[in-house]
């Protein structure tokens, strides 16, 4: 792992939440959630169903307004920003309920991720200017590199709507990687995948962390995967942080076991069996 905390020009914290609240009507989906995500690791967010994990992602990516608190991305306050501005500032995400554009091809889905990185801008891209054409060629090249990284090289011309579940998950990750984010939020990336696909995904996540210099936030129910991959684990329950720390410590925390009580075989689940 790169020792990014040593570089003087980057803050050591990729994402910070201070007392963040999110309410839906009467439901308090997040209640004074505070959290520091260090640069350059895999930070897992776990918790039972309905704990507020997806809401946490929605809040930091600008899809849902927070009703209190602060969110900082690389040291800069981003709460209240429009989602497109947060994306441009270096945050990318995938969705628990898939959000691949079904009326676009895989290539076009990935190209959309390049928007935030397109320097020629929207206007000149349509003209036949040589600079715009070079730019377009560069973007296509980038998209193809990412497609191979996420095992989609052979599907670039397929329609987003014609893909299998696992392929769609990979399109989302590829699209997010195309944005060259500093922080990547993955909402249950291996849900519904078979074991081969799951281990490939785990390998990909390590590559993302170690070689691409991206801080990964991971929501995942597969506890074995969380315990093996994560450098840090935060546990949410009923919209509150009940524990946060290294995987081994969190696993033994009585509050965590309590949060999972009622879930059959809670301690087995947490042990990752």
């Amino acid at each position, binding site marked *: 792992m790169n020792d990014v905390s040593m570089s003087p020009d980057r803050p050591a914290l990729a994402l910070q939440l201070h007392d963040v609240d999110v309410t839906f009507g009467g439901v308090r989906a997040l209640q004074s959630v505070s959290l520091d995500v260090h640069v350059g690791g895999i930070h897992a967010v776990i918790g039972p169903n309905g704990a507020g994990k997806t809401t946490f992602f929605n809040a930091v990516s600008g*899809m849902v307004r927070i009703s209190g608190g602060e969110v900082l991305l690389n040291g800069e306050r981003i709460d209240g920003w429009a989602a*497109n501005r947060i*994306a441009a500032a270096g945050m990318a995400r995938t969705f628990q309920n898939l959000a691949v*554009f079904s009326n676009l091809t895989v290539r076009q889905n990935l*190209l959309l991720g390049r*928007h935030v990185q397109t320097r020629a801008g*929207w206007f000149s*891209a349509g003209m*036949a200017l040589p600079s715009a054409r070079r730019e377009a060629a560069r973007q296509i090249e980038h998209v193809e590199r990412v497609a191979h990284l996420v095992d989609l090289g052979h599907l670039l011309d397929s329609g987003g709507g014609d893909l299998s579940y696992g392929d769609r998950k990979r399109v989302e990750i590829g699209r997010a990687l195309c944005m060259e984010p500093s922080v990547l939020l993955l909402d249950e990336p291996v849900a519904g995948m078979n074991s081969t696909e799951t281990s490939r995904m785990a390998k990909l996540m390590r590559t993302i962390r170690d070689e691409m210099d991206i801080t990964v936030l991971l929501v995942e129910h597969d506890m074995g995967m969380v315990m093996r991959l994560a450098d840090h684990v935060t546990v949410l329950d009923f919209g509150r942080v009940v524990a946060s720390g290294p995987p081994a410590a969190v696993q033994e925390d009585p509050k965590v076991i309590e949060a999972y009580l009622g879930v059959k075989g809670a301690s087995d689940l947490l042990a990752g069996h």
Partner: protein
Amino acid sequence: MADLLQLLVSGLSLGALYGLIALGFVIVFKATGILNFSHGAMLLLGAYVVTRLAHVNFLLAVLAGIAAAVALNLLVERVLVRSMAGRSALAITVMTIGLDVVLMTYARGEINTRVLPMGDPWGATMVSIGAVDIPLSRLVALVVSLVVVAAFFVWFKRSSWGVAFRAATERRDVAPLMGIRLNRLSVVAWVLAGVLAVIAGVFLATFPSSGVNVDLSHVALRAFPAAVIGGLDSTHGAIVGGLMIGTAEILAQGYQSHLEFLGGGFHEVLTYVLMVIVLWFKPAGLFGTQEVNRV
């Protein structure tokens, strides 16, 4: 045979104009989810501005008409759409109906019962191509529409805009996360709609039409079924739908005497008959992905 050819050319020419109008509907719908029912009134006001200035210079008058409609559309976009951000598209759609009433009241006050000649350089000139006699204005309308449509599609396909528009149409909540600015898409859509409407408006009021009167906005509303037939979220569907309706309308008019059994004025309702037939088999229109009832 010559009759049929003549009718076909006229029909395609009218259809291409309907296509331009329908394209404006569709782009705004794709970018914002709004059905803009003030589109016809914008077209009328733009064409009206052209008639007022045509004596100076026709081309400049057209540019001024386009500028007027674009300025109005930008105002609508800013006041109605932006300030309503977060409200349902349906609420704003209903407000465009209100806006249409306001604009039409103003237009009626200005135009009254008059028919204002377009003042175009083509007048009633006829050209003969083989055995077919056709008004020059119809040919120019056809050529201009085709050039405008071609330019639009080159831009839409070559630039990243087309992909962004499609993404925003499918998932308005997700598209911004790729850095897409919905506000910019919206502005561009309303500007384009204004430009397309006035170009169509000018040619709808040239020969054989005698000029601009308040009914021009009703003519424009006939392009709405064209957009529905093609699919409300399909740009090429708008053009196909427009060509279908224009051709059908002119053919029905031309062969009216053979269609007496369907009642006089059948060509006026034909559009809607076509729309119902298409929706019966394809609820999202020929090329659309969203059913009208989901709007």
